[in-house]
């Protein structure tokens, strides 16, 4: 299954992927509107800047997802390899935030649900972070595990 991988050697720590991610999931047509109108633009990818290195991290779509196992609402499921949150069911308790060992589930701006990378399944074939990475540091590919 294709997943998103980040090449630490190439990641510049520009954080643009976070903004493209938030925009892609905002439902807005213009990036500045997504942020200017105070909509629910939350990045599901996180760029780390610690220890003099940079890399972005997002949901690994684990084989045995702790977030899914631990979700108290049964709102997280894995469909065709993609771990997804059913926002209709999510109550925003953030047990998934507590559970994810990658720190890749974020409280949504509305305060009532959680958000995570779902590989931009709704936004096109190539995830926004991959498509817009200015240094080709983020790739979407199949790797033997």
């Amino acid at each position: 299954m294709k997943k998103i991988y980040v090449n630490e050697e190439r990641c510049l720590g520009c954080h643009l992927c976070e903004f493209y991610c938030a925009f892609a999931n905002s439902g807005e047509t213009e990036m500045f509107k997504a942020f200017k109108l105070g909509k629910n633009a939350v990045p599901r990818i996180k760029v780390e800047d610690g220890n003099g290195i940079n890399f972005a991290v997002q949901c690994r779509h684990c084989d045995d997802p702790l977030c899914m196992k631990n979700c108290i609402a049964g709102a997280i499921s894995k469909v065709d390899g993609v771990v997804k949150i059913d926002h209709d069911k999510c109550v925003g308790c953030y047990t998934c935030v507590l559970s994810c060992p990658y720190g890749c589930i974020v409280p949504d701006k509305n305060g009532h649900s959680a958000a995570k990378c779902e590989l931009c399944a709704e936004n096109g074939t190539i995830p926004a972070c991959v498509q817009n990475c200015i240094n080709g540091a983020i790739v979407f590919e199949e790797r033997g595990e």
Partner: protein
Amino acid sequence: MPVNYFPAEFEVLRNYDKCIQCRACERQCSNKVHWFDADFGKMLSHDEKCVDCQRCVSICPTGALKIKPNENAFRKSANYTQPLMTEAYRQAGTGSVLLSSMGTPKDYPVYWDKILLNASQVTNPPIDPLREPMETRVFLGKRPTQMKFKKNGELDLSLEPSLALNVPIMFSAMSYGSISKNAHESLARAAEELGTYYNTGEGGLHKDFYRYGANTIVQVASGRFGVHKDYLNAGAAIEIKMGQGAKPGIGGHLPGEKIKEDVAHTRMIPRGTDAISPAPHHDIYSIEDLRQLIFSVKEATEYKKPVIVKIAAVHNVAAIASGVARSGADIIAIDGFRGGTGAAPTRIRDNVGIPIELALAAVDGRLRHEGIRNEVSIVAAGSIRCSSDAVKAIALGADAVYIATPALLAMGCHLCRSCHTGKCNWGIATQEPELVKRLNPDIAYHRLVNLVTAWNHEIQEIMGGMGINSIEALRGNRLMLRGIGLTEKELQILGILHAGE
């Protein structure tokens, strides 16, 4: 606080309706132009630090940025222009030689733009390069001038060592030190894929790049940095650099800050020390001395590799080239004065040397006249900006061309001409690890391949239009050229007719 005599050169314009404060501009500006002001709650900029490298403009996700020249103007004078005044102020403040990078921005004539190309009509019809073979392969090196026979009477088919290029374009010398390791890797990989050559420049060859040796020209310059037997043998050819178009008669100076561990190791000098290339080779004061060096490196490489001698285009370039051709060099590279540099004194760059077009025509004419044109190949360098420049150079007598600035552009360079600061925001002319990172060789090499491939298509198309199907047939074919708006003297030097003739 002393008086600030000169204003910021550029102005950063930010469309606040579009700025989303992602701060990518701030994070990506090595000159620290942008910052987020918490009190104002918005992004602001130190315009005076901006070098107009366009990095921020290029990456701004909402297109909120624009850089434009500062409109503030000193009182106009055609003689004392604002740049001249500013430079005087700057030198009055520092007491230093002005430093610049890349090719001169001055408004000197560009002869390429005053030369027009021919095309066939009716007779000798054009060739469609998509349907018919169009040879862009070029061999550089000595050509046999007469048939030789072995003792047993058989024809001697052995040839002098040469370079084989799939395209008549090579990447000219840029040293590791002046440009980044990632830039070097990109050039090396592109040369390999294109079937051409890149040039190490005078900084030696990083151990990681010996694997691209078959597509590498290793350079020996006056500083002799990183020169040793393995280095000479690693490349496909050896280039002795006598001069550089952008700074003829001037050595090089790579400041100690750029000499990090890897660069120091590659150059075989202590870390942090300035790498100074003397103006002359201290062992070369005559053509005979040059010959000695040529044969020294030939000896070291068992006469298996062609030797290139690179000279700057200066006033008596034709005579110099004649001497070089007789010194044993296999290839002469001539570097015109509009060529680029990683750092040069401004006054030298902007005032010394002559244009490549005139130098090339003069050299080709002189060598033909002396009957030694076949002794050497000629490579034209110093502002070959596009495929038609390359075609014109070949028609003026070059066997191939060297390009560097277009290669840098392909890798992202925006010609801000700030290489000498070492803070290249595009990761090219820098050794700062976090800046070098910005040049992803996987992307850059691909863009280099694209550029040269595109040029090669254009060259084929132009040649096809002339009814010519090989570079070999184009070389020195000045009948394919006509001057426009040139004086009788210029036409005479170029050896071409005026349009309409």
